[in-house]
């Protein structure tokens, strides 16, 4: 199944205010892979993610989703297959009730009403939030909002899940629950995060970004052992590894 492939080819992007956010990013993520995108604040993670659904257009370079190159003409097709979960769920949940919010995407796809209702129920059940369907989004807790935000994307049945800081501002239990939930997904996953422990739990592969460039790309466990690389990229070892190192010495 080649349509779950995400490929970036020498992406460059400069913001209108002349800040260079991406300076030649290339990678290829194949079907079913789960990849962590790590890097310090301002390394270009979010900018890169916004290229994957065509919101930003690279100054130079190309993005390929599945078989097709991303162009303004096939944006809607690409956006259907790339599900994007934003960092702040308040930005993503804009409809009057949770149900309406999850139904928003499928309705825009033009699916019949019964099909939409079925999809909404399935998506909400997957994230364990079916009981909240009638509630307005602003009344939910952070953890609930995050889960519902994921459901809104799942209801579109995307092939690829792109997430920006999914565990930020969650309490430890909600975070754990989210990780367990994400583990059950079979989608190709791209997760931008600072939470390196979560990256270890979820992603077999990691891409390290630093100042708009890929400084490393490889198995997560290996990369996170490399203290030199991490400190060059303004990162620290995951907490669990720090502990190991201490007891080891």
């Amino acid at each position, binding site marked *: 199944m080649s349509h779950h492939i995400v490929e970036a080819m020498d992406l460059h992007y400069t913001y209108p205010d002349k800040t260079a956010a991406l300076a030649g990013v290339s990678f290829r993520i194949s079907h079913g892979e789960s990849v962590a995108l790590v890097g310090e604040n301002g390394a270009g993670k979010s900018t890169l993610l916004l290229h994957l*659904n065509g*919101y930003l257009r690279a100054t130079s370079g190309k993005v390929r989703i599945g078989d097709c190159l991303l162009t303004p003409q096939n944006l809607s097709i690409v*956006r259907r297959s790339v599900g994007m979960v934003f960092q*702040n769920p308040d*930005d993503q949940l804009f409809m*009057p009730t949770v149900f*309406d919010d999850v139904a928003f995407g499928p309705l*825009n796809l033009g699916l019949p009403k019964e099909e939409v209702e079925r999809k909404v129920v399935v998506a909400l059940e997957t994230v364990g939030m079916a009981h909240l369907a009638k509630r*307005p989004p602003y009344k939910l807790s952070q953890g609930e909002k995050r889960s519902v935000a994921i459901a809104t994307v799942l209801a579109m049945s995307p092939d690829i899940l792109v997430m920006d800081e999914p565990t930020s501002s969650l309490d430890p239990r909600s975070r754990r629950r989210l990780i367990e939930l994400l583990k059950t997904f079979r989608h190709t996953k791209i997760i931008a995060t600072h939470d390196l422990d979560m990256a270890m739990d979820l992603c077999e592969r990691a891409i390290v970004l630093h100042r708009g460039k890929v400084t490393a790309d490889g198995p997560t466990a290996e990369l996170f052992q490399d203290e030199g690389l991490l400190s060059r990229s303004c990162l620290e070892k995951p907490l669990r590894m720090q502990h190991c190192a201490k007891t080891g010495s």
Partner: protein
Amino acid sequence: MDTLACADSPVHRLDPRAKLIATFVFIVTVVSFDRYAISGLLPFFIFPVVMISVAGLPARYILRKVLLISPFAILIAICNPFLDRSILFHVGGINISGGWVSFISILLRFFLTVTAALVLVASTGFNAVCLALSKLGLPKPFVMQLLFLYRYIFVLLEETERLVRARALRSFSGTAMKLTTFTSLISHLLLRTLDRAQRIYLAMCCRGFDGNVRLIRSMKKGRSEIIFVAGWSVLFIILRYWNIPLHVGALITRRSL
């Protein structure tokens, strides 16, 4: 309000459009009285009273909300007693000017219309009211504006509260906010809101937004809706043209005489 709208009662079960139309007719008839009308307005209290009791809404809560907005109405009406000094009638030697009568009339109208509107929202829910508006032909952009307003007003308030708190914690004199601080606070809020709007739009685009917001809601036009709208409308029109308190009063005084 939204929690109240989730309850179940004969009023809650009615189609939002029926309640909207009945409330609209109510407001129009109440407003259409002439400016010295008082007695004619009194029977109209039957609508909010019946709606509140059948819907099982907490009357006190609604009253408190109405009182909360009442300063606006008082502010508008307060000029009348000073501007309109023509004497209309005497009560026990005190001259009552037309200004005071219209003052009371305005307050009564305010009380009736606002209570009716609050009852509508409390028994239907703001979103359902918006939806009813769109089904009744209000242009979609307006409906969307209302829906977004209602969705993000809470987020905006929270953000404002955070900004105000942040300022309060770092200003020690306890004096009021300086104008310069205030302007920068407000402009920050505006910038943040613009940013947020951009992010929301992006989120909408990501899920296939094409300019139309679609909602799944089943609306029904049953017998109870028709009876509800027709019954209330007829009653309002009768009350509008027949001053019942006056007739009843005349009846009683004639008998007692």
